C-alpha cells in the first residue's frame, strides 16, 4: 500500500464517518457544522480524483453557500427545535428509508465493483471539438457549449429558488429588505474583516471566473466567492441589505439568464438551432454569457442567504 493510497482510504473513511456523525448529531446546529466539514472533505476527495472543477464547486457551493443557508435555517429553527425533537418519524418510515438507502448503496457499489470495460466515455468525442470552441478547459466547454441547456436551466432554477424564498415574506414586508440585521459593532472585528477581505475576495472571484476558460474555475465558483464578499459586507453593516423592490437589483438578478436565453434564441436564426453559437463569435459570446451569469449568480446566492424580506418597505 503506497502513501497516496493510505491517504485516499483515510479520506474515504473520514467522509463516511462524518456523514454518519451528521445523521446522529443531536442538534440542527451541530449537524450543519458537520455538513460544512463534510463538504470540505468531499472537495478534497474530488481534488484527489483530479476533478478540480467539481472540488471548487463543492467547496464554494456545497459547503460554503449551502452551509450558510442551513446555518441561518438552523438558527431560525432553534426556538422550536426542542419541541419538534419529540416528533420522531415512525418505524415504517425508518424501514423505508433504510431499504432505499441500502438499494442506492448496493447500486453504486455494483457500478464501482463491476465496472464495464472499457468504461463508456464521451471524453474523446468531446475533446475533438475543443479547439473550435477556443475554450481550453474541457469542463467549461461542456457546460457552456455541449450542455448549455442544462447550465441555462440551472440558473433559472436558482432564480425560482429565490422567488420561493421571497414568497415566504408576510404581505406587509413585501418589497422591503431581507432580515440580515447587522450584528457587529462599528469598531468590532467583523467590521475589520469586512474591510480587509472583500478587496482580495473580489479579485479572486473575478480571477476564478476569467481563468475558467483555460483552467478549473468558472461563473458558478466565481459568483459564489463574490456573493460571500457581498454577504460579509452586509452582515458587518458596512452597506445596507437592498430592498427587494429595487429596479437595479431585479435587473442584476435576471441579466445573466436573460442574456443566455437571448443568445439561445438568436441561435435559431443565425447558426442552426437553440443555444448554438455562430462559429466566429463562439469565444466572445461565451465570455459575455459567463460574465453576466457571474453577476446574477452572485446576487442570487447572496439574497438566498439573506432570506425573505423582514422589514417594511421604505419610500
Amino acid at each position: 500500500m503506497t502513501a497516496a493510497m493510505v491517504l485516499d482510504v483515510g479520506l474515504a473513511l473520514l467522509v463516511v464517518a462524518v456523514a454518519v456523525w451528521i445523521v446522529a448529531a443531536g442538534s440542527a446546529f451541530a449537524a450543519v457544522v458537520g455538513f460544512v466539514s463534510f463538504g470540505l472533505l468531499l472537495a478534497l476527495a474530488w481534488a484527489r480524483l483530479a476533478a478540480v472543477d467539481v472540488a471548487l464547486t463543492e467547496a464554494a457551493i456545497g459547503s460554503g453557500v449551502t452551509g450558510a443557508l442551513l446555518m441561518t435555517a438552523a438558527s431560525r429553527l432553534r426556538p422550536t427545535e426542542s419541541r419538534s425533537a419529540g416528533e420522531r418519524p415512525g418505524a415504517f418510515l425508518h424501514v423505508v428509508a433504510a431499504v432505499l438507502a441500502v438499494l442506492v448503496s448496493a447500486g453504486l457499489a455494483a457500478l464501482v465493483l463491476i465496472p464495464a470495460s472499457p468504461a463508456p466515455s464521451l471524453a474523446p468525442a468531446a475533446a475533438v471539438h475543443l479547439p473550435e470552441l477556443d475554450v481550453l478547459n474541457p469542463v467549461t466547454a461542456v457546460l457552456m457549449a455541449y450542455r448549455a441547456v442544462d447550465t441555462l436551466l440551472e440558473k433559472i432554477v436558482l432564480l425560482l429558488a429565490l422567488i420561493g424564498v421571497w414568497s415566504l415574506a408576510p404581505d406587509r414586508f413585501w418589497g422591503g429588505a431581507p432580515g440580515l440585521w447587522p450584528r457587529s459593532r462599528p469598531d468590532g472585528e467583523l467590521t475589520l474583516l469586512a474591510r480587509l477581505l472583500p478587496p482580495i475576495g473580489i479579485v479572486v472571484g473575478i480571477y476564478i471566473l476569467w481563468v475558467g476558460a483555460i483552467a478549473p474555475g468558472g461563473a458558478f465558483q466565481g459568483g459564489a466567492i463574490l456573493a460571500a464578499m457581498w454577504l460579509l459586507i452586509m452582515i458587518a453593516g458596512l452597506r445596507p441589505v437592498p430592498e427587494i423592490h429595487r429596479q437595479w437589483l431585479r435587473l442584476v438578478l435576471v441579466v445573466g439568464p436573460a442574456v443566455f436565453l437571448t443568445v439561445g434564441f438568436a441561435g435559431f436564426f443565425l447558426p442552426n438551432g437553440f443555444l448554438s453559437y455562430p462559429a466566429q463569435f463562439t469565444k466572445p459570446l461565451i465570455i459575455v454569457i459567463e460574465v453576466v451569469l457571474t453577476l446574477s449568480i452572485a446576487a442570487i446566492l447572496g439574497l438566498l442567504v439573506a432570506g425573505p424580506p423582514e422589514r417594511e418597505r421604505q419610500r
Partner: protein
Amino acid sequence: MRVLFDSFTVLAVSAGAVFFLAGTVGLLRFPDSLSRLHALTKADNLGLGLVVLGLLPQATGPLVALKLITVWLLAQLAGAIVTQLVARAVRRENQEA
C-alpha cells in the same frame, strides 16, 4: 543543496504537523470553550505557518511561493477574527447564564 532544502521541508512540515496534533488534542481535551479556542489558534497560526515555511523551498517559482504565503496570511486573518467572534459569543452566553 537539494538535500538541504528537502531535509528543511521534512523538518518544518513535521514540526507543523506536531502543532496540528497538539492543537487537536487540546481541542478534544480542554474543559471549556475559551481554552479550546486557545488550542485551536496554535494549530492554525504556528502549525500552518511551519507547513508553509517548509513548502517554500519546494515552490517552483516566486509566484507559487507568494501564493503559499498569501494562503497562510488569509488563514491567519480569518482564524484570528473568527476566534474573537466565537469568544465574544461565549462570553455573552456566560453572562446570560
